Structures are given as structure tokens and as C-alpha cells.
């Protein structure tokens, strides 16, 4: 399928859309060649010559597509592929590097800080919010299987909630966890997570195994 030309409008539309992360990643991968040509000032007639704003939005959007598909080493490679002229000067791409550093070092508080407090361009906001929710969900799942008991402020820190309020055992924060089925012990002030198992889309694993075994058996 022929894609529309790379443009700020097209990128904004993609960032605001609800397409699956893998689809978003696939579409933006297709655009990377165009972006490289734009960076060299030799884009197509539609995209024109070097356009820092377009490039900044493209690379930032593509960066978030990597994060949403959990491709962290690839996201790092992308930051190295960004044209040097904009990577070192563009505020959005500098923000991306700050965010990547925090993710790489698993500094949860820094990740939320970068997502919430850094000045992201308006057209990128939907993706920033989308990644924040994604990161929060992933962390909630990881915490649920990594802790048997966890103090409320620590759990709040992982999920980017107000840690000062959590220190005071704020009921609204407690409720966020109890809504997930976690137990709250008000005496010990500890949360007892219930492991969250993400169901797979496959419904009949046993048949699948039989099929796979049959396939192997046929070659005997």
C-alpha cells in the first residue's frame, strides 16, 4: 500500500491515532528513508528540502514507536541514526535521549519525570501519554510478580503516583492498588500484590503442541 508523503500533518495524524504499536512502527519504518532524504535537503517534491521541524517530529514519533513495541536497544540505535545536526540541538530529541537514559537505567521516577515535565511538542503529546500508560501498566505487572509485600510509597514510586501522599497512606492511592486485587494491610502498612498474568491470544495450546509434534513426527 502506498503511504501518503511524509509531512507534519501525516505524523500528527499517526501520533493521535489508535493504531497498534506494531503497525505504527511498521509505517514509520517505511518513512525513515524519506526522512534521511529530507535530512540531506533532497526530499521529494512533497517534503521539500531539509526541514528540522519535520525531522524532529518524525524521529521523536519513531522513537516512541520503538518504546511502545518494547524495542529499547533498537531505540538506542535510532538515536544514533538521527542526523547529528538535529540530535544535538533539537529540544524534543534531547528529551528523547533523557527519557531513553532513564529507561535504560530503570530509573522509574526519572521516566515519569521526563514524560510529564519535559516540554514535548503538542503533536507528540498523544504518544507521550500513550507511552506513560503503557509504561505504568508494564511496571504494575512487573511489580505484581516481583514483590510479595511492598510498602505503599515504593509501589507509588514505581507507578509514578504521589509518594508524599503515599507516605501518609492516602486512601485514594491505596484504592488504586486494591482495585487491581492487591491486599492492603493497614496495620503493617504493606501492600500484598496479586501476580498479574497477561493472557495470551492463543486459546488452545494443547492442540497447538499436538500439531507441532505431529509435524515433527511426519519427518521421521
Amino acid at each position, binding site marked *: 500500500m502506498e503511504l501518503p508523503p511524509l509531512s507534519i500533518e501525516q505524523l500528527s495524524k499517526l501520533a493521535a491515532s489508535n493504531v497498534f504499536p506494531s503497525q505504527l512502527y511498521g509505517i514509520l519504518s517505511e518513512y525513515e528513508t524519506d526522512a534521511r532524504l529530507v535530512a540531506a535537503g533532497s526530499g521529494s517534491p512533497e517534503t521539500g528540502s531539509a526541514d528540522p521541524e519535520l525531522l524532529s517530529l518524525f524521529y521523536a514519533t519513531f522513537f516512541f514507536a520503538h518504546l511502545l513495541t518494547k524495542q529499547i536497544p533498537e531505540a538506542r540505535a535510532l538515536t544514533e541514526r538521527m542526523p547529528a545536526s538535529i540530535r544535538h540541538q533539537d529540544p524534543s530529541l534531547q528529551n528523547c535521549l533523557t527519557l531513553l537514559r532513564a529507561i535504560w537505567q530503570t530509573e522509574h521516577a526519572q521516566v515519569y519525570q521526563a514524560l510529564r515535565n519535559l516540554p514535548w511538542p503538542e503533536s507528540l503529546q498523544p504518544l507521550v501519554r500513550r507511552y506513560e500508560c503503557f509504561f505504568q501498566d508494564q511496571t504494575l505487572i512487573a511489580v505484581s510478580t*516481583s514483590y510479595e509485600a511492598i510498602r505503599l510509597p515504593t509501589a507509588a514510586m514505581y507507578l509514578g503516583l504521589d509518594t508524599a501522599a503515599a507516605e501518609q497512606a492516602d486512601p485514594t492511592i491505596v484504592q488504586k492498588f486494591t482495585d487491581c486485587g492487591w491486599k492492603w494491610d493497614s496495620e503493617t502498612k504493606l501492600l500484598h500484590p496479586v501476580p498479574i498474568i497477561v493472557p495470551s491470544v492463543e486459546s488452545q495450546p494443547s492442540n497447538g503442541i499436538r500439531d*507441532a509434534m505431529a509435524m515433527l513426527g511426519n519427518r521421521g
Partner: protein
Amino acid sequence: MSITDDLMVASASLCKTTGLPNNKDYNHQIRNHITALRNLLSNKDLDSVARDDTLLNNFDPSQDSITYLFLLHLQIRAHREASGHDLPTDLLPSGKLWLKSEYFLRKFDPIQVRYAGHEWRQLVELVVQAAQASPRPFLAVALVRDAMLRLDPSCAVLTSTHLLLTHLSLCSKAYTCALPVLERQISHVPISTGRHFSPSLQILCAEHESSLNFLNEATGLSSKLLDRDYLRYFLYGGMIYLALKRWEKASHFFGTVISMPTVGSVSMIMVEAYKKWIMVGLLEKGKLCPPPNITAPHVVKSIQSIAKPYFNLAQAFESGDKNRLEAEVDAGQDVWRVDNNIGLVSQVLDEFARHSLMKTKKVFAALTVGELSAQTSLSNGKDDGITESKISSLIMSGAIDATLVHSQVCSNDSILRFTTASSTSPQCHEIEMQAQLQIQGRLLESLFGNMEEGNLRLGLSDEFIDNSIRGQPWAGAGAGEINPSLSGTADLEVEEDIMGDLA
């Protein structure tokens, strides 16, 4: 009638025959078409054609692949001669010839180009050179990859284009771009086709069980590969997986390099791969992995002596002594820098924390973070908060099977409890197994097919046939002088008489 008209008529007649069930006819026509094209284009008076920017618009690369390809080369040659440069401006990215080349490589008919292998490969190589000269190697990565997959979706035969792609992918840091090719199992290497595989006798347009029938040096779709080219492909592939932190795959690729059969001296590429193999072993398994069993003993001896600093580093890692490990890292700084392995070494240092935690697991079922801080090097015993944060990161990333239990008072009372079973549910485990089985099943399926083809090739190779002839006394007698001791016909008759008695 102009030359363009002639070419259009010839190409159109070829297109009409594409659907013929008789491959021999199509094979014949396409070969005649190429001969006619070569004759036509060898004409010196083609300047006007070569400079006509609209000429290629008369042809559709998906239908008239051969004509398009030959004309494109004609135009490239003309631009080269006019500019005096191997890579004229029009051939660089976004130039007129670049766009035509790109269009062709995305649309060509994979059957037709089997007959114009040299020209196809030359175009791919030109595109790569142009992208590298621009210098934007990234622009050629996806193009070359897609062209390779279009030509042969199985990508099971190692060709010179494989090497180009992996090199390009590393240069442009576009690692994932090369994965669709890298993840296909290489089952054949193009052999020097002997007397039994004359390309002019083969029906290249036929449906072949193996792409080895047309992806070889004789058809021109691959240039001649040297021993070091095989090694380089697997080294580059391993490096791509390293960049993506896919240790198991990287290890497989480096292992292939190290265990490549060799008779004489050991290649420095093998040494390079061995150094990375050691590092990957530490990152993946936390230990110094011996070279693959099939590695020749003299190779093992040589590479281990050359890669001594890496060997020492791995031994220090295994000893569990952090001070010793840091001393080895410091001592080898120049080596790591020259080898471009500084990043790997720093990852190995980080990995040491997980490794020391895993060692603790062998002794303790559970312990407090305070005790753990004293036992391991996670925070150099300074801050239990840092230790806990590192432990939780390791658990949450799935690097270790354990859980943390907070107590109500302060952080150093947190308990780390090691678990043996994975935290995933039996159903998830089963689904994961099922996916793995399906992948392995598909791999086996492809391996069996390729083994049969390999067997056939081996059976028809010149070496095998010559050896078989030498091993068969009667055949030797027929040939004359192969084995003088068995050349007498009387001996053969005696043998047959003996068999006759049994009847």
C-alpha cells in the same frame, strides 16, 4: 523503427510468453532476448538512447525486467563516461539514476533476473556504493534487503549480497533492517559449479526446489566468495545480534565462525569472533564457554593464545572476585579500545552483579537486603537502598527468579526470596513452549528439505564422482589407468564367476 521501438516489441513478445506452461520455450526465448539485447547495446551509436531521460518510462520493470536492467546499465555507463566519475551525481541518492535503480529493485521480476545475474548484482553493488559515498548507507539497507527477499524469499544460499547487507546494516546502525535475512537459515554456500551444472544448459525459469540452482557464481547473482567472506558474514551477523542484545543468536553466529573448518593458519576474523564469543558467554551464561566441540584443536590453541586478555577477564569473572575483575578490565583498556570492545566489557562488568546474585542463590533460599549487600558487590556495601533498587530491577526485568518482601519498618529489613519456578502460569509456559516448538518445527522442515538438496549436490559434485570412480575397480578398469593393480580383465571375470556359483 527506432531502437526503443525494437526493444519494446522484443520485450513485449517476451512478456506474452511468460504464462506458457512449457518452461523450455520460455527459457529459450529469454536467452535469445538477452543475446539480442547484448548485440543491440554493444552498438557504439547509442548516445541518444543512453541520454534519453524518458527512455525507461517506456518499460515496466516488473514485466520488462531484463530490458529495463540493460538499459539502466547503458545509461549509467553513459553518465560515468560523461562525468568521468565511477559514481556520477545522478546515481547518488535522489538522483535520476538512483530513483530508477530504486524503482527497478523494488519491482523487478525475480524469474527474469535469474538470466541477468551479473547485471542485477552490479546494480545492487552500485546502489550500495552510491549510498555509502553520499554518505548515507542507511538509504540502501532496506532496498538491498527487499531486493534479496524478492529474488529468493528463502535466502538459504549465502551470496555476496548477504555480506553487503550485513556490512551496510552495521555501518548505518540499522540493525533490525537486516534481521529478515539474518533470521533465515543459511543451508547452502554457492559451490564452484562443476561440469554437471552448466548454467546455459539449465532451465533457470523453472521452479527449483533449491535456490542454489540459480544463486551461484555461474549465473552471476553472487560473486565468488572467499573463505574470509563466509567468516565475515557470520561475524557481522553476530555483531548485529550483539547490538540488539540477542545473546543466544550472537553466540550461534560467533560459534559458526570459530568452528569453520580450516587447514592452515587461523584467520584474524576467527580470533575476533572468539573474543566476542567469550564476552557473549559471560553476558548470556555468566561463564567462560569453551569453543564449539567441532572446532579444530589447532584453532582452539591459536585463538586462545591470541585472545589471552579476554580469557583472563573471563576467568576473573568466573572467580567471583570483583577486585580481580576490575584489575583485569583496567589492565586490558588498550586491548578493548583497539578491538572496539569497550562497550562489551562494560556490559560484562554490569553483568557481574547479576552473576554474583545468582551465586548467592546456590547457597541461600532467602536473605535480607542488608546481608546481601555485604555478600555481593551490588552497591559496594554502601547503601542498602541502592542494593534493593538494583535487585528489584533485575527481578522485574526477568533476569533472576526471585521475589522481594518488604517489612513495615525500614528498607534493610527487606527480604529477597529466591524462587525456583518461573512466575509465569503453566498455561503461559505451555503457550511459550508451543511457540518454540512451532519455530523449531519450521526450522527442521526447512533443514530436511535443504539436507536432501545438499545430499544430491554432494552426490553430483566432481570430487565425489572422481572419488567414487577411484573406489570402483571395474569402473577404473573401464577408464584405463586409474588403478593398475586391478586393471586386468581376467581378475574381474573371476569375481563374476564366484558370484555365478552362488546362483
